[in-house]
């Protein structure tokens, strides 16, 4: 029973991918993708219910006992990431019905998209290090194809940079796995915790920890490893860049959180100190980079980087409150960021471009879109009572609690600069009149396109407001998730069956 609950969120999108590929030249393919996303969401909610019921759950694939077989395991953090992945997937599947042209669908867009969701979900659920590498690759190859699908010089150029840097990071990660296996003799994460703690050469463990930090750091786009992100995220279809912005970097953050709470905790003073500085620089360079841009999606891309810093900061401070803030931030950010990219896509439909110098007048002619932009934008900047406020509040409070004044100062300063960027988008895209003198009204897009694209935007905005006004259950959930991360006894017991 348990194993089905764990397998379904991965299996459903894979089956949907196969079906969508077979019917890719048919309008049915679109419906398969949508139906698959709905089923994935139901499967992940079932997983969430099981985790809330029983705490950490684990399943051994093919009945090979841990640590020899591949384990799937879900604690609070994994479960919430799987649910949020399914929500983003469903929102994107609806949005794609409005945006993705038929020619791209015939190339297998929906199949690739479902494979991406399967890869991301697999990475969140696996309890085996080498299996994590395989899920990363599933996710990567799908993302490579999605990035360049549709062609064009810009996308190919962006694709080459993205592919090259991600492949290097994968190889660093892979050699880290090899070396860690050499030291501990296991690939099971729970078993590895003990293996690493008992290792003779702790210096070597720290070196390997740094390899993981670099490998996952590239995926998470932290300073100074983020250059592939602003080079590529503004080129693909909006549906694709939204799902990338929401999910892909977060897999890197999740992997960092998992490895640096479960396995690499032997030298916290060294590794997490580095993470603090990396996080602060990530936050600051991201937001400064955004200030220099005038393209809707380029500004948002740099903001991803800046926000990643807050999440890794939650991990780096390594107190219960900070990790709780990090987990909360992770969930809030995925919803908000995907939504902002969705808004950018609809703004382009109405106003004709994403360069802020060449659009305008959206507030007057599309007030609904303006209202729906304000919600995620101000949430991102941390305005109360939206979800971003609570996320930032937890992180800053955690920093003040351990007298890290400078960290708290930088967090608040970056929040201030985020407001600057958001008001820039607001002023240029929504308030100023359109430079070409046209009225960017919703009539400029076919009604079924507007409907398909507006639905997920409204849904995600509603979620932002709900989390903002009723943060209590989410904060409590994040607190339990943080407790489980800091004391992974339950995780280890669930995987190894309590008897080491």
């Amino acid at each position, binding site marked *: 029973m348990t194993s089905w609950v764990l397998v379904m969120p991965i299996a459903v999108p894979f089956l949907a991918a196969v079906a969508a590929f077979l019917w890719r030249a048919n309008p049915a393919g679109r419906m398969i993708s949508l139906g698959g996303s709905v089923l994935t969401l139901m499967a992940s909610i079932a997983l969430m219910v099981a985790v809330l019921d029983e705490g950490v759950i684990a399943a051994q694939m093919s009945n090979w006992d841990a640590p020899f077989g591949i384990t799937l395991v879900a604690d609070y953090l994994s479960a919430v990431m799987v649910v949020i992945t399914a929500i983003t997937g469903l929102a994107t599947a609806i949005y794609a019905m409005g945006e993705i042209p038929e020619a791209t669908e015939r190339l297998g867009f929906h199949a690739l998209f479902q494979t991406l969701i399967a890869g991301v979900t697999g990475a969140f659920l696996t309890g085996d290090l080498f299996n994590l590498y395989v899920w990363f690759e599933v996710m990567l190859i799908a993302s490579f194809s999605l990035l360049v699908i549709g*062609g064009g010089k*810009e996308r190919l150029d*962006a*694709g080459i940079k993205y592919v090259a840097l991600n492949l290097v990071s994968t*190889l660093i990660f892979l050699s880290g796995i090899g070396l860690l*296996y050499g030291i501990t003799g296991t690939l099971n994460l729970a078993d590895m915790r003990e293996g690493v703690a008992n290792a003779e050469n702790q210096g070597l463990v720290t070196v390997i920890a740094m390899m993981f930090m670099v490998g996952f750091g590239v995926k998470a786009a932290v300073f100074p490893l983020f250059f592939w992100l602003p080079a590529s995220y503004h080129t693909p279809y909006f549906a694709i860049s939204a799902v990338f912005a929401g999910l892909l970097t977060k897999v890197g953050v999740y992997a960092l959180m998992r490895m640096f709470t479960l396995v690499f905790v032997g030298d916290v003073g060294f590794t997490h100190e580095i993470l603090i500085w990396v996080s602060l620089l990530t936050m600051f360079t991201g937001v400064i980079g955004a200030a220099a841009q005038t393209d809707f999606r380029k500004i948002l891309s740099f903001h991803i980087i800046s926000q990643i810093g807050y999440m890794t900061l939650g991990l780096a401070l390594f107190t219960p409150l900070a990790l709780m803030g990090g987990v909360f931030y992770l969930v809030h950010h995925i919803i908000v960021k995907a939504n902002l990219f969705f808004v950018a896509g609809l703004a382009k439909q109405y106003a004709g471009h994403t360069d802020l110098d060449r659009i305008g007048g959206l507030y007057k002619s599309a007030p609904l879109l303006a209202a729906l932009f304000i919600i995620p934008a101000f949430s991102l900047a941390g305005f109360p009572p939206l979800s971003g406020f609570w996320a930032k509040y937890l992180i800053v409070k955690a920093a003040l609690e351990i007298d890290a004044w400078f960290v708290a100062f930088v967090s608040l300063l970056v929040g201030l600069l985020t407001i600057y960027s958001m008001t820039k988008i607001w002023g240029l895209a929504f308030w100023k009149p359109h430079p070409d003198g046209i009225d960017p009204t919703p009539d400029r897009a076919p009604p079924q396109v507007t409907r398909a694209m507006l639905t997920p935007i409204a849904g995600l905005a509603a979620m932002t407001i709900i989390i903002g006004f009723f943060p209590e259950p989410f904060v409590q959930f994040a607190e339990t998730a943080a407790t489980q991360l800091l004391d992974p006894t339950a995780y280890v017991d669930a995987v190894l069956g309590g008897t080491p």
Partner: protein
Amino acid sequence: MEALTAIVIGTLTAASVYLMLARNFMRFLFGLVLLSNAVNLTIFASGRMTKGHPALVPYGEDAPLGVVGNALPQALVLTAIVIGFGLLAFTLALAFEGYRRMRSVDTDKMRFAEPKEDAQK
């Protein structure tokens, strides 16, 4: 044996870094191939080297007798090779399509996603 493998891995890595520092994207890709081989050798060596003890189960037995080589890293390397091969095939096709459309493999001239005039705005 370990020392020799370590030297081979080191040489491969050094050569791959040298190639990856080039502006030519094809050279970068060749560097990536060498690096992926170096990584595969690392995984292989991390399972410890045993000489002349194949991981085979004799006929009529349930488990191998005596000392055998560690079979797990071989399975890992095999997986990594297959995945690496797939990714390389994709990347080569991407590089070729990129060359066809951009007429260049010089990464300094690939400035279509981030045009230089952006900086002057």
